[in-house]
């Protein structure tokens, strides 16, 4: 795909984030969509392309009154929205539609109108993982961590520092759920969830949503907000069963999606001013830094523990506070994208001065899928 041909011209989260007991999941989609449409200065009737995950496109389009000529229901977990951005950019370039709305919302905490997630007993996960006591992401996502730590010499303290640094970013963000400072000792003394991970190394569980609007770079000049261009994109999937990953020393999906996006954007790692790596759990930024090629895996833990990703550090990472401290409704990819767009617009609560290139990297399932978007505010 050619770079910088499509831009984000509308971006917004739900009016509230956190605990929202007065709205269903479907209404949260609508709330985010209406906020994004207002942000872009558009009407609902201007939308001719639509993408969402978990909820179906027909469900959300009918609720909003949208009549699309292009839809994408790709649903591969929390990075689905990175894939939607990639697919939407291709669709706009191909002339299949002009203005795409992407929505996410999840009543992850209040569980109002939330679709059930189940693992059938005759699925492969149901036969070869569920009988051994996996029960939700905290029991599955950290399974590779001990092998990764042993292979690369990563310490428990370094993995704890991920949560500490992200809390520093969250403290600057009025909408973050958790803002009180924490120490490595606090993390290592918090309640054990699934060894080696403790409570403060696991993401929050909240309600909320977000929406993006994309159009061609040519049309983007006529919108009220500063356009944020899609400079590069990548995607892949590996396996729905964490036990069947090729290796626990890296993620094949990350290693496919990330480099694709860098190549398409034509950038090197030292061109990146701002970085988001979906942090459902504390090990994900380490996998991301290594798999995206920022540094050897052995250096990832020390890099974060030494403060290189904290406010004022040389590689600002997860500047909204991340899934660990900002919010995590279940599919966090949309919030990572929103923070990249805010940084490129120059309006983030913890703004990185003069940031021109933002890389936003997502995971779906337990390393099952991945999507990477490179944004820029210069064409």
């Amino acid at each position, binding site marked *: 795909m050619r770079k910088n041909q499509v831009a984000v011209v509308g971006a917004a989260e739900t009016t509230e984030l956190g605990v929202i007991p007065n709205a269903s999941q479907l209404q949260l989609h609508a709330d985010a969509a209406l906020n994004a449409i207002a942000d872009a200065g558009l009407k609902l009737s201007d939308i001719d392309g639509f993408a969402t995950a978990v909820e179906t496109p027909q469900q959300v389009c009918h609720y909003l009154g949208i009549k699309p000529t292009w839809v994408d229901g790709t649903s591969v977990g929390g990075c689905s929205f990175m894939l939607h951005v990639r697919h939407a950019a291709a669709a706009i370039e191909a002339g299949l539609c002009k203005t795409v709305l992407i929505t996410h919302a999840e009543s992850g905490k209040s569980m109002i109108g939330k679709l059930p997630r189940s693992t059938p007993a005759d699925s492969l996960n149901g*036969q070869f993982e569920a009988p051994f006591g996996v029960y939700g992401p905290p029991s599955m996502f950290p399974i590779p961590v001990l092998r990764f730590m042993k292979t690369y010499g990563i310490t428990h303290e370094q993995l704890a520092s991920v949560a500490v640094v992200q809390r520093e970013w969250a403290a600057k963000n009025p909408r973050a759920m958790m803002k009180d400072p924490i120490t490595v000792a606090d993390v290592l003394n918090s309640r054990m969830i699934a*060894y080696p991970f403790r409570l403060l190394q696991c993401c929050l569980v909240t309600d909320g949503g977000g929406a993006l609007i994309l159009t061609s770079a040519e049309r983007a000049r006529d919108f009220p907000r500063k356009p944020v261009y899609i400079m590069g994109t990548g995607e892949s999937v590996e396996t729905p069963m964490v036990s069947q990953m090729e290796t626990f020393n890296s993620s094949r999906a990350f290693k496919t999606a990330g480099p694709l996006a860098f190549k398409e954007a034509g950038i090197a790692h030292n061109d990146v001013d701002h970085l988001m790596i979906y942090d459902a759990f504390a090990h994900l930024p380490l996998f991301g830094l290594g798999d995206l090629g920022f540094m050897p895996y052995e250096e990832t833990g020390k890099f974060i523990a030494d403060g290189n990703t904290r406010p004022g550090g040389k590689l600002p990472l997860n500047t909204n506070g991340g899934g660990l401290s900002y919010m995590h409704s279940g599919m966090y990819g949309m919030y990572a994208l929103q923070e990249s767009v805010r940084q490129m617009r120059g309006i983030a609560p913890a703004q990185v001065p003069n940031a021109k290139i933002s890389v936003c990297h997502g995971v779906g399932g337990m390393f099952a899928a991945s999507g990477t978007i490179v944004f820029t505010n210069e064409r």
Partner: protein
Amino acid sequence: MAEPQRARPKPTPETQHFWDGTKAGELRLQRCDACAHVYFPPRPFCPSCASRKVSVFKASGKGFLYSYVINHRPAAPGFTPPYAIAVVELDEGPRMMSNIIDCPQTPEALELDMKLEVAFQELDDKIALPVFRPAKG
């Protein structure tokens, strides 16, 4: 009121040989007749070369501890926390999720790369699960 049951696998036509094997006290894997690739989970073709000519064979049941978590909360129905959820790498190459028996469920006792051997845990009169214990000697 009955206790919530541990998740029970339901075989499909493609996996029935595996579950027949565990019931008979055998860990069964598949090997491609064309390229010799050994793979898991079961399927009637080779995921490496796409050949449909594959054979079922009895695996050694030996392997090592590749990685694990010790789950504290939330615990799955039928499990008493803390309990380890392990991934075992078999000597034949494939990895599988399992539990570790006859071993304290602690970081000190569960050492990565420790040698393991298969055992079979009866869930009911139809299903036995492959679990692993520290290898003897």
